């Protein structure tokens, strides 16, 4: 039982990272933009948060956790939305190919983040690894009274606030896409921009907004990873990139529905960590085990294309640029 609880808690922490990435990407893809820059955007969000907290903690005499938290949160949001803006400008205004632009954004974001993550401390005249302990502690704060409620407390109340924020954002996105007028317009843009345009929807504005907001949400995944998952440090091992692609996979697995992404994200977490709780696995078979989320995603992708049910298809104009004069 203790093992199960600890598997579930690590799955939730893992799932939260990719949940942010996936919900952001769903919002973006619903506008018809297939942004393969999710890993890059998560990198940008992560490094901006860490850098902001780093400079704050370096310059403040007595750094206060909550201030570092607010600063880094704002910086992460701004940096990842800026990444989304680059993508939006190139694909929407300049009509560059979406796949290529997205991949470039991933290369760029990963490069920028790892460059600064690896050298920020050296550049600032310090030695060794970058660390923002005070801010990270604020991110990981939970209510001790609730977390102390035995197993229930451990399973539901032992996380930093961003784990709950992720659920709220996913539910909010779900409501927005299914219930609000703007959300329905957005989906119309992603399905058939020409029709939406004819109906008086400003296609360009919706695409820009969805891509930037989506990028902002995805970037929070990187922030959560840096601040909570690895406790306010930085490592250039490429984990964020792997998680970013997993977030793209999660979008497919959840068939473009943010609410479904919540439990799917935790399921991915369980699949990813399960090897830790199965005894007698060799190191080689652990590597095979880590393949599971991707295999499952391919199966879902194939199943979706076989069933052809209308609800679970990708947005119809996904990946295509829209140019009014070309109709």
């Amino acid at each position, binding site marked *: 039982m203790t093992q199960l609880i600890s598997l579930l808690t690590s799955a939730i922490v893992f799932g939260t990272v990719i949940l942010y990435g996936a919900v952001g990407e769903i919002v973006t893809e619903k506008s018809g933009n*297939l942004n*393969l820059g999710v890993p890059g955007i998560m990198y940008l969000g992560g490094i901006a948060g860490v850098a902001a907290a780093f400079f704050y903690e370096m310059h403040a005499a007595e750094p206060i956790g909550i201030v570092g938290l607010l600063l880094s949160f704002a910086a992460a949001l701004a940096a990842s939305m800026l990444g989304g803006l*680059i993508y939006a400008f*190139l694909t929407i*205004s*300049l*009509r*560059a*190919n979406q*796949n*290529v*632009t997205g*991949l*470039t*954004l*991933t*290369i*760029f*974001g*990963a*490069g*920028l*983040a*790892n*460059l600064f993550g*690896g*050298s920020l401390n*050296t*550049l600032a005249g310090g030695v060794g690894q970058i660390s923002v302990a005070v801010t990270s502690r604020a991110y990981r704060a939970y209510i001790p009274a609730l977390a102390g409620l035995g197993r229930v407390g451990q399973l539901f109340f032992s996380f930093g606030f961003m784990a709950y924020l992720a659920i709220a954002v996913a539910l909010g996105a779900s409501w927005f896409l299914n219930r609000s007028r703007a959300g329905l317009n957005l989906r119309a843009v992603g399905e058939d921009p020409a029709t939406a345009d004819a109906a008086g929807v400003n296609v360009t504005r919706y695409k820009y907004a969805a891509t930037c907001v989506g990028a902002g949400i995805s970037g929070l995944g990187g922030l959560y990873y840096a601040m909570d998952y690895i406790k306010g440090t930085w490592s*250039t091992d490429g984990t964020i990139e*792997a998680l970013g*692609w*997993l977030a*793209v*996979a999660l979008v*497919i697995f959840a068939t473009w529905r943010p609410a479904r992404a919540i439990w799917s994200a935790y399921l991915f977490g369980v699949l990813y960590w399960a090897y830790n709780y199965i005894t007698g696995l*060799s*190191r*080689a*078979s652990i*590597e*095979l085990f*880590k*393949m599971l989320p*991707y*295999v499952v*995603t*391919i199966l879902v*992708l*194939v199943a979706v*294309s*076989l069933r052809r049910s209308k609800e679970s298809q*990708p947005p119809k104009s996904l*990946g295509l640029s829209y*140019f009014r*004069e*070309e109709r």
Partner: protein
Amino acid sequence: MNRHEPLIHIAKRDSIAWWQAWLVRLGAVVLALLTSALFIYALTRLNPVKVYGAMWEGAFGTPRRAWITARDTSILLCIGVGLAPAFMMRFWNVGAEGQVLMGGCATAAVLIYCGRSLSTPALLGLGLAASLMAGALWGIVPAVFKAKWNTNETLFTLMMNYIAIQLTCFFVTKWENPKGSNTVGIINQKTQAGWFPDLAGQQYLLNVIIVLTVTVCMFLYLKYTKQGYEISVVGQSENTARYAGISVRRVIVRTMAISGAVCGLSGFIAVAGASHTVSTSTAGGRGFTAIIVAWMSKFNTFVMILIALLLVFLEKGAIQIASQFHLNDYASNVVEGIILFFLLGSEFFIQYSVRFRSRRSEKEAEA
């Protein structure tokens, strides 16, 4: 005054002279280089002119460095050439990374398991065949699903990459040498069995020759053969292809087999001809970079040489600068990203003409 005319007017160009198109691209490269110089200056306070001097030094400073640049360019080029037929067919093969890794693993398997029993030519032949098959297999799987059920190939090939990466990690732990190091080490270090032989005293000449041959062959295949023509028809319009009696399914599967096989070949060259080991960095993101190389060059394999060379030059140069200033190698990815953003953006100005609302046209409107 006509207030309704928008400030910027965009119209698709009918055509553009080739030299104008190249002028636009050159302008983009220059702008990108300036931006990167600014970026590097902000980090290192190094004179921007000296930056590019140091970069040149890093890429071509010594014969050894120049050969390493040539080696890396040829692998990137080979992957790009492999992607060309798929992209020409408008099949988004984002799975080059995985196809390269599978080719690399197949080659490593041959070198490890047959290293003692076979001669080097036999090993190379067997490794070549194995890598081609492994790469082709990785390409065919998504192609079959695309052809039969129209499964989204971008996402499918993307996922195949990660399966290949985990498989590679699996093989690395299986073949690790020495035990516990979590690396395969240099395969057949003592015997050098199955390594590319030196040609004219140059270690990497054979790599370059193979890749250039493949580049020329692919150019001819796409431009002058019936199959190449079929690929471009399917890429332009599947309905037209069907109407003309082309079996679209067969073309998709066949083209992806070729695309995957050439990517597998890159893995073969990377393992047997360059690193003599296998790990996830056998592909190391080049599968993704090559997508950009292939797309930018508009499927022209000769233009790919230029772009691949430019990217590898930037990579080597930025690594040189980074090591001088105790930064890490990721500086090269930043510079690469900047230059690609500019090149991607420049295509717009080649395809469309942009006209600002000028005073004169306003006067004309008044009159």
